[in-house]
């Protein structure tokens, strides 16, 4: 009988852990809260200045190297994205904003609805243009550190925060490093397009120097490395 009583408790625990996104494993749920865009530590590319990334697209065993030039336009509230081959041919020329992606030029090989939709989703997510406005309802997760070896009682230090946010394009999970105040990873839900983005920073820098995007079901990976 005692075992039977324990069953619903175990079920609740199991369901709770099953609902926790993978990137928030080991973190404590803090329930639903209203958060602000600033909580996600959006990194700011220099306004009206272009930033260059070398880009490696991997699909199954194939690898394509290209360049990604990104320039925010403060006045237009959008970001220009130009992807070119190493040899200079334009692969994609577009602007992304909260409204979506406006394509000016696109290589024949990319002109497929599904490919462009995935690209739009990924690029919007990287530059946090997938979130409209400044306040969002989010399911919040925390990971704190308590120094138990110290003789003096200290408050736990918040190490990482996680936010699950429902957007028009699906559910996004953002993980931040609260000590360094940086966005470290984003996980996206989706049947085929489920993916993870990891942001790496050099010491003292607030712009990621390396961004890795992976869509395991599609066997698609994108590596962006800032060159300037």
């Amino acid at each position, binding site marked *: 009988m005692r075992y039977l009583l324990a069953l619903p408790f175990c079920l609740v625990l199991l369901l709770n852990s099953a609902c926790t996104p993978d990137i928030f494993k080991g973190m404590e749920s803090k329930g639903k809260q209203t958060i602000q865009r600033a909580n996600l530590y959006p990194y700011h590319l220099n306004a*009206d200045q*272009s930033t260059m990334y070398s880009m490696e697209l991997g699909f199954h065993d194939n*690898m*394509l190297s290209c360049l990604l030039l990104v*320039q925010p336009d403060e006045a237009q509230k959008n970001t220009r994205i130009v992807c*070119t081959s190493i040899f200079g041919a334009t692969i994609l*020329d577009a602007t992304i904003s909260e409204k979506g992606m406006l394509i000016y030029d696109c290589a024949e090989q990319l002109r497929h609805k599904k490919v462009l939709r995935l690209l739009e989703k990924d690029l919007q997510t990287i530059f946090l243009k997938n979130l409209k406005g400044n306040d969002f309802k989010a399911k919040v997760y925390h990971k704190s550190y308590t120094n138990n070896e110290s003789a003096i009682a200290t408050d736990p230090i918040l190490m990482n925060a996680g936010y699950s946010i429902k957007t028009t394009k699906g559910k996004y999970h953002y993980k931040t490093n609260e000590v360094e105040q940086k966005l470290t990873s984003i996980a996206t839900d989706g049947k085929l397009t489920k993916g993870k983005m990891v942001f790496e920073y050099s010491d003292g820098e607030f712009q990621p120097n390396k961004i890795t995007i992976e869509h395991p079901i599609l066997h698609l990976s994108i590596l962006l490395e800032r*060159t300037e």
Partner: protein
Amino acid sequence: MNKIFSLLLALCISASVSAQKALNAADAAEVEKSIEAQTSKLTTIKSNFKQTKHINGMSKDYVATGDMMYKKDNKVILNYTTPKKYKMVVNGEKVMMENNGKKNVYNTKGAGASMNEMQAMITACMTGNLQSLKNKYKLTYYEDGQNYLVKVVPITGKKIFKDIEMELKKSDKMLTRLRLTETAKAGKSGNDYTEYSFSGTEQNISLADSLFTIE
């Protein structure tokens, strides 16, 4: 303000074009003959290059440097050294891209007509083989004191490029500059271009076949 700036820019561009004198049909035919005579003798080329990608509206141009090797008939190596090491080898229908030690081999046979056309056209421009372009492109010749300028404008097929400008030294007919201007995009003003400048060119030197081997 933008209109004034555009007008000034247009004036500057037209001024730079007018510095080159257009050749009449007879002179153009003569120049074409002499370029072909020179390029027909070519077996190999080795040259340094600087590649500049200009995108309208971007705050700076993307610049890459490296060296180029060509061996008759259809073998090309583009070896990028800055800002990132990258290598492309073309040997007939095969193309190999090498990045960080990872090699990818493609066959251009199934790559589509536009890709094949682009490859043939760029190779023809880089090696000065103008004869092969005449069916699909209109060629106009200009000259100044030191150089010939050949303007290549597509007349049939997919117009990936608005035009291609080739600058060849009068003395040895070697290509010193190649500019590929892309067609204007809807909603964007001006044209983006990629320019290659060549220097330290050596002709007919020994280049082993093994350099171009694709495995």
